[in-house]
């Protein structure tokens, strides 16, 4: 029996959070959450591996570390076909950087899923895009790992992974347990996520058994605090300034376009490497 762990993260639905120019703060509370698209592909890969094996040959645990509202994506994962959903949530986990996230996910896997065979992550989450959690989780667990997979295949006790990195098409292999991150930007549609079946989330919701674990249940130290353990500190946040003298054109489109070519045509024509008629009044047109 293969126990597959899929790490999924909840991310804001829109990439640009509404931002209040007056107060200079983010309106985070208005942002709706969704399952990170890259982790969704990882879940799809797990579902396909499971489907390719015999009945009861594989089991999928979806795990997420996040605020209580991240429970939603675990119901969704169950509706899609995950067997178990686990939410690691505790105010002391808030503000975790990638190292701390990997530490917490690693603690859960080591202590509570000792039979884990294959661990899947998205390669890169859509909100922070660090691509760090997967590799750091592999370090934490001290297991082999392969990043940016576009195709997985189980061959006896090992897994074969096809990936495209930096212009190299590679075929790699490792023994299990191992960790694989699924390419978020792969053009083939092998792991394009399936849709949640109609009424599926509701059904999963009614079946209602997402396991919730806080720091104590997870066995973290009393004085654990993810935020203060982070080695990097944000010292300032600023809005990128603009430097250019800019000319603003308004009015009728035809007139604007003519102004563009009359006043800046030389710049455009030299970049094109073609001659343009730039001044109407020179009688060229």
């Amino acid at each position, binding site marked *: 029996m293969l126990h597959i762990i899929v790490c999924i993260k909840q991310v804001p639905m829109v990439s640009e959070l509404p931002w209040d120019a007056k107060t200079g703060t983010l309106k985070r509370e208005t942002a709706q959450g969704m399952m990170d698209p890259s982790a969704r592909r990882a879940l799809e890969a797990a579902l396909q591996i499971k489907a390719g094996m015999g009945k009861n040959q594989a089991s999928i645990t979806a795990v997420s570390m996040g605020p209580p509202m991240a429970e939603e994506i675990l119901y969704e994962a169950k509706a899609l076909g995950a067997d178990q959903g686990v939410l690691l949530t505790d105010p002391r986990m808030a503000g975790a950087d990638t190292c701390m996230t*990997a530490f917490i996910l690693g603690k859960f896997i080591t202590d509570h899923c000792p039979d884990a065979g294959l661990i899947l992550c998205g390669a890169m989450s859509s909100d922070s895009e660090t691509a760090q959690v997967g590799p750091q989780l592999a*370090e934490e667990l001290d297991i082999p790992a392969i990043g940016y997979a576009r195709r997985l295949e189980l061959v006896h006790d090992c897994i074969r992974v096809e990936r495209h990195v930096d212009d190299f098409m590679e075929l790699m292999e490792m023994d299990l347990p191992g960790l694989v991150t699924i390419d978020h930007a792969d053009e083939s549609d092998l792991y394009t996520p399936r849709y949640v079946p109609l009424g599926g989330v509701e059904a999963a919701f009614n079946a209602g058994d997402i396991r919730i674990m806080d720091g104590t249940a997870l066995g973290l130290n009393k004085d654990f605090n993810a935020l203060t353990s982070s080695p990097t*500190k944000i010292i300032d946040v600023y809005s990128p300034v*603009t430097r250019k003298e800019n000319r603003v054109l308004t009015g009728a489109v035809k007139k604007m*376009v003519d102004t563009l070519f009359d006043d800046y045509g030389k710049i455009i024509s030299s*970049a094109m490497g073609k001659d343009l008629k730039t001044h109407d009044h020179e009688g060229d047109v």
Partner: protein
Amino acid sequence: MSVEKQIWVWADYRNYFQSRVTLQILARASVLAEKTNATVCAVVFGDQVDAYVKEYIAHGAQKVYVTDDPFLKTYNVASYAFLLTALVRRFAPETLLIGATRFGQEIAPRVAKQLETGLTADCIDLDIDENGQLVQKAPSFGGNLVAKIITPDTRPQMATIRPGTFQELPHDDEAKGEVIPVPLPDTMPSPRVRCLKSELHPARARKIETADIVITGGRGMGSKGKFRKLFDLADLLHAEVGATRPVVYADWVSSEALVGQAGKHIRPKVLFSFGVSGAIQHTAALADARFIVAVNKNPNATMMKLADVAMVADANQVCSGIIRALKQRIRD
């Protein structure tokens, strides 16, 4: 004598012909080193990498640590991370910079984790503060803002940098550098990941990075059908077409066209930008665009502020208008 401060750049030469990211970071490291009185060092792993060592010296490396061994012939994340960690422990550099190629993005977090130090991904700029610390500037909060990040207590200070962020220094044949060979440690673990095949497959259409004219379209183009009009304009202008992320996600155009942090850096002489709001993840890749024409219904969009010429109008209408005007104005 005080201990020499060093800034290390991990050399990612496998993509040398596609991505000159190591040379670009060496250039920035030279600027940082000047401010802190540090030495710029490259760190090279591989088999018969002499030519690269010379190249890095010619591009600003004052010292090069080299582990040259047949065992390192294939790029292997775990082995390289082990070795890099061992070298950092031994020579204690202040700063370690790594190109954000995919391989770089795999090795950097692993080394940071082993060393229990911080790592800032995808910096758009690096600087030094009054205490001599590395200031890592990275987009944050969905791209509206840039965060300045420091690593106050742990060393090295680590950052990854996307290709194209900095400009390399000119090749200097006269430059001198010290080469420090470091033998492969006996403790090197045998690789747990086996590489069965690794073939060069250059991505298609890299032309957008070098095109003299680029046309980018954003969500403001309205639909896939309307977005296609940008290609008609591109044909007339001999331009390449780029896009923002929502456009790529909506499948109006393939991900090859993505311009921005997660996509391509461009440096056109002229950039036409249609219906793009100007989030930092997108504009970080436009810093080298020389002349920018932006079209947006909203005069306050960031992209409009960045432009030399900002046209407050409907993107589709202006696109059609320019096509019409060009047909009249191009002299054959």
